[in-house]
């Protein structure tokens, strides 16, 4: 190593400086080299060029997502740099064809046609969350709003008790915002493993009590005549909770924070549906909630003019590529009607975010309703708290705001929760293909 002409940098996506200066580091790095070698976290390539990202993302054959903490296949470290956890994180830490089998089971729940079915639930919970605070004149956009709706929706789609969203909320967020060198890191790992244990119990329960939703679908699925392994299913459920809880939440917080002083844009987003569509893509591009993905190079190779060695780690920074001026003129400006906007916020290639259709729907409804019902909110900067590390998810812990109080528009949140739980419970249970098989 080091006999080649690689450009060496010291980049750490978890560092406070990255959070404080984002998206500026994208430009400093790219100007040095769009595919540079960072010496941090035991060394990894960091990709900041959009063109290079496009080329690399097509090569799932050369770039592995596999996570093999026990070293039974290849010892690869998965999608987190540095490696995180001692278990595989569901299908995002698998390669095709194994990965494709999980997605084949879940795609029918997350296609554009399927997610629209959940709009009534999103509408009801969005309305109820705003009602809970509308008479008080203050709220925390994260705690009272953005944390709740995506989480309840995820519970519903998995077939888990809706009210349990609160149990998973803090662990799900802590999992993504805790920096590897944080004093809380071990605490986070403990909390995460308790969450995984609880989810494992539910997966076990669903083997005898099937419910409509993704857990039962995973349990019923067969690949080459075999049911999917428990650890693959539990890892996948944990992944869907992380993806479902934290990303839409972060995008909403970023957008609401940016819109704080922009009253003209706020009004137009409420009234102009096309503007909301393009604005959603622009917020996705600018903030890129899921900042990127780690990969492991499977063999010595050359892609996009760069030479890689088997075993090299690589961070595909969707966020920094989304700020590449070659593809996005004035990349650090938020231009709500930007076009074209072929951003990589959901990742590119076979690992494209499986929940992207749901995220868009949920985000648009929630943003529009927040702006419609709380049109004069002002963010309280003193109470605003970003994630400690935005290297995994670019999000907020707290985003408090004040506003002119308004009126409730419907029944309270607790009642909506009960009504929806009863409605979901009334749906007939799917066939249990595991009955008698275990």
């Amino acid at each position, binding site marked *: 190593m080091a006999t080649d002409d690689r450009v060496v940098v010291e980049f750490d996506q978890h560092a406070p400086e990255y959070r404080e200066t984002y998206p500026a580091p994208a430009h400093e790095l790219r100007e040095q080299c769009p595919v540079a070698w960072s010496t941090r976290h035991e060394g990894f390539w960091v990709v900041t060029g959009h063109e290079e990202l496009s080329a690399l993302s097509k090569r799932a054959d050369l770039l592995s997502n596999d996570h093999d903490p026990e070293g039974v296949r290849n010892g690869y470290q998965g999608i987190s740099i540095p490696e995180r956890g001692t278990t595989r994180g569901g299908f995002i830490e698998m390669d095709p064809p194994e990965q494709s089998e999980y997605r084949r089971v879940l795609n*029918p729940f997350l296609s554009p046609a399927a997610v629209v079915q959940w709009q009534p639930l999103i509408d009801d919970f969005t309305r109820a969350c705003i009602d809970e605070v509308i008479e008080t004149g203050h709220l925390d956009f994260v705690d009272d709003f953005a944390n709740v709706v995506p989480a309840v929706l995820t519970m519903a789609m998995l077939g888990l008790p809706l009210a349990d969203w609160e149990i998973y909320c803090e662990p799900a967020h802590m999992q993504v915002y805790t920096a590897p060198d944080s004093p809380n890191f071990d605490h986070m790992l403990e909390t995460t493993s308790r969450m995984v244990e609880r989810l494992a119990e539910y997966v076990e329960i669903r083997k005898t009590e099937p419910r409509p939703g993704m857990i039962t679908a995973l349990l019923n699925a067969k690949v080459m005549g075999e049911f999917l392994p428990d650890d693959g299913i539990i890892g996948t459920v944990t992944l869907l909770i992380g993806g479902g809880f934290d990303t839409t939440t972060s995008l909403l917080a970023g957008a609401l924070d940016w819109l704080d002083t922009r009253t003209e844009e706020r009004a137009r987003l409420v009234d102009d549906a096309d503007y909301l569509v393009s604005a959603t893509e622009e917020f996705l591009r600018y903030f890129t909630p899921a900042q990127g993905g780690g990969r492991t190079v499977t063999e010595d190779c050359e892609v996009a003019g760069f030479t890689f060695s088997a075993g090299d780690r690589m961070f595909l920074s969707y966020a920094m590529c989304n700020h590449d001026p070659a593809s996005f003129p004035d990349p650090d400006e938020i231009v709500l009607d930007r076009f074209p906007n072929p951003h990589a916020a959901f990742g590119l290639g076979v690992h494209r975010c499986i929940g992207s259709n749901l995220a868009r729907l949920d985000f648009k409804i929630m943003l529009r309703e927040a702006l419609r019902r709380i049109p004069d909110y002002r963010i309280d900067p003193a109470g605003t708290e970003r994630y400690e590390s935005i290297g995994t998810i670019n999000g907020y812990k707290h985003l408090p705001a004040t506003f002119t109080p308004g009126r409730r528009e419907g029944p309270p949140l607790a009642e909506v929760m009960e009504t929806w739980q009863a409605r979901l419970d009334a749906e007939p249970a799917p066939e249990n293909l595991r009955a008698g098989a275990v």
Partner: protein
Amino acid sequence: MARVVVDPELCQGHTLCNIAAPEIFQLREEDGHAYVVVEQLTPEQVPLARKAELGCPERAITVEE
């Protein structure tokens, strides 16, 4: 006459083409991947297809004139 094609190997179901031009691009039920529903593009459809081509994150769409 102009036509537009979606490369099924490259399409990953971002769905932005369908958002831009639903009369040209439809999405498969099972995974949301796009397919073209018009044999030939009318002159009015060409700019819409071009819009989808430019906006595709996977560069899976090609307009042939």
